[in-house]
């Protein structure tokens, strides 16, 4: 898969000429790519050395089916859970197999379609791949070489879509690789809520994902991604947003599945007054590793960003949070906050937390906080002193720990199911029989509750 091929698949996967050309160009670059190792800072603590990319076979054009073949109506339980919706895109192994949009929104010029087929190519061609190109790594190149198309959501200027547009990704096939791509374009003054769910059965699968969100001047995008891959699936994903002047991004991620699931969440604040809020909830159990790399990139004055990532690990699971706040020279009077908190619930589990600041402007406000530790003994005792059994007390504390993020998720209908999904994971808490030691298991981060550097830089 990683030998670059002969360009045959680039043509066979179909789509507009510019998409074929993009595949061909990427395929040409694949041969020269140096695959990453944990020695590189951006892959530090990851399990990248356990990944043999060549082992996974991409789907052929025949297996994926021709673009535009609509053979998966409905979206099933996952779509139903999101409650009332404005639109739906179903994606199987990276191939869009179903799209729908409420007629009044279509009439207003909004669009949900496959990048490979949609009639309105202008915005897809203009934006597709441009955000990933601004933050490339070997997996975005691999993605480009094999991406069959992807979900395209376009909301024209001034149109506000209040109910969520749901994008469902199903990845299947043992020993196979898929390349889901989502492109969301909100033109000036537009508004939309986009919910993506990524899932796979128990297969050794590699999902190489790119999500690009373009938020125009004064537009507001609410975005939620839910990752519930099977326990043997590897997921390597980039979610990147570019924000125009006074644009607003409220982005959230819930990560529960995967053997190794890496998510790069990046927001570039290009226009003055742009605002970005990044949230995440993650819970690792078994042997899984959840790996987050975040970037709050301020490139314009009076921009504001905030980040709150909260996670828990139990059994032998591991999590990594490595985040960078970058305030470029033009980002005067910018404000940025970054908080990562982790609960380590059993002795064999491990969490890393590495917040970073890179400040090149002299009139900014920045704060960051990071914590890694076990469940608070005093909270546990307080609940137990009311007659609540220890396992239930711990479950309450863990769910409570996530509650402030849940309360801010953009799709209230989904909060209940997601809370239950976390609750079920905590329910397995005592199967391994191991408890953390009394003290904090601070890895790279300071002790629980500690808050680090703040003030004006």
């Amino acid at each position, binding site marked *: 898969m990683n030998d670059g091929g002969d360009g045959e698949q680039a043509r066979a996967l179909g789509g507009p000429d510019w998409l074929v050309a993009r595949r061909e160009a990427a395929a040409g670059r694949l041969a020269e790519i140096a695959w990453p190792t944990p020695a590189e800072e951006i892959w530090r603590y990851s399990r990248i050395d356990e990944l043999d990319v060549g082992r996974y076979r991409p789907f052929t054009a025949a297996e994926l089916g021709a673009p535009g073949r609509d053979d998966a109506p409905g979206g099933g339980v996952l779509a139903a859970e999101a409650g009332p919706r404005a639109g739906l895109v179903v994606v199987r192994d990276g191939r869009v197999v179903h799209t729908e949009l409420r007629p009044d929104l279509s009439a207003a010029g909004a669009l949900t379609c496959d990048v490979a087929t949609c009639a309105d190519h202008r915005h897809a061609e203009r934006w597709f791949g441009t955000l990933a190109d601004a933050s490339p790594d070997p997996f975005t190149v691999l993605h480009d070489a094999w991406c069959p198309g992807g979900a395209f959501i376009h909301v024209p200027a001034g149109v506000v879509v209040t109910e969520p547009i749901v994008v469902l990704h199903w990845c299947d096939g043992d020993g196979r690789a898929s390349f889901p791509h989502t492109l969301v374009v909100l033109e000036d003054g537009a508004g939309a809520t986009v919910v993506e769910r990524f899932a796979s059965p128990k297969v050794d699968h590699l999902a190489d994902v790119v999500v690009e969100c373009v938020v125009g001047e004064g537009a507001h995008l609410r975005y939620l991604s839910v990752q519930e891959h099977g326990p043997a699936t590897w997921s390597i994903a980039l979610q990147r947003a570019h924000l125009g002047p006074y644009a607003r991004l409220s982005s959230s991620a819930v990560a529960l599945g995967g053997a190794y699931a890496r998510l790069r969440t990046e927001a570039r604040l290009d226009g003055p007054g742009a605002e970005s809020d990044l949230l995440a909830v993650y819970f690792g159990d078994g042997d899984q590793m959840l790996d987050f790399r975040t970037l709050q990139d301020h490139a314009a004055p009076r921009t504001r960003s905030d980040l709150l990532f909260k996670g828990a690990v139990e059994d032998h699971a591991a999590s990594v949070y490595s985040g960078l706040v970058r305030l470029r020279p033009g980002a005067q009077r910018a404000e940025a906050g970054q908080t990562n908190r982790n609960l380590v619930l059993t002795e064999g589990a491990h969490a890393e937390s590495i917040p970073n600041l890179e400040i090149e402007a002299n009139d900014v406000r920045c704060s960051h906080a990071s914590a890694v530790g076990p469940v*608070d*003994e*005093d*909270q546990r*005792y*307080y*609940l*137990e*002193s*009311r*007659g*609540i*059994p*220890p396992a*239930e*007390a711990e479950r*309450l*504390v863990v*769910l*409570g*720990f*996530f*509650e*402030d993020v849940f309360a801010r998720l953009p799709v209230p209908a989904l909060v209940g199911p997601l809370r239950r999904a976390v609750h079920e994971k905590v329910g397995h808490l005592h199967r391994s029989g191991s408890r953390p030691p009394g003290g904090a298991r601070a890895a790279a981060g300071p002790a629980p509750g500690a808050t680090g550097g703040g003030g004006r830089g």
Partner: protein
Amino acid sequence: MSRLAILGLAARVRRQEILRGVDLEVGSGEVHALMGPNGSGKSTLAHVLAGRPGYEVTAGSVTVDGVDLLELPTWRRAQAGLLLTHQYPVEVPGVRLVDLLEAALAARELPAGALDRLGERVAAEAERLGMPAELLARGVNVEFSGGEQKRAETLQLAVLAPAFAVLDEIDSGLDVDALRTVGARIGALVAETGLGVLAITHYARLLSVLRPDRVHVLLAGRVVRSGGPELADEVERIGYERLAAELGVELAVPPPPPERDPFADPGF
């Protein structure tokens, strides 16, 4: 009719002996006040009764109707009928009072329907205790004022309806109005449900709103005097120091030696 019996209870914290043989008996519908100065072991007794980790019982027994509480983990003691209201209730973010109470009630063997309309009952109880309804939407104790914390502790006591309550300085941090409200609510539980109360307090002011049947004075880990309500007035009048001097006993357990820092320079 239930009976809480504490006999010869001795306990250590960090190898320091704090309780040195405490004897107390409380029956249903009785209010007992346990008074003592700082360092006398009052809060230690509260946490030993609740089974807090780090508190080591070295002698004695605690029973409710013959059931040995010291053999039970913390949560089982609450289920057995002994509930502690905390002096410093900890914040539990994201866990509302109703979540906590639901979990506590669900863990008991209660008749079907015991959890029905719990939210309404909690709201009604909050109103009775003068707690703003918006506190019920927050994590328990999160950014509660001192008075709100103690009202919330009282609310839990009323909903969980144990046989016995150990009130660990429920009067601290309360203004006059809150003290009256909390005292009246607990008094009503005593009168209506037969709640037995062991009220641990520093001052006699709680006892003006929650009239005790018996008053005990704890000095240096022992109950040195017991009497009727008039004992509280006497303590208030003469003070703990003079009382200790008159009885020829220590006022307080000496503070524990500082824990040795394992990373300190060993000095050789």
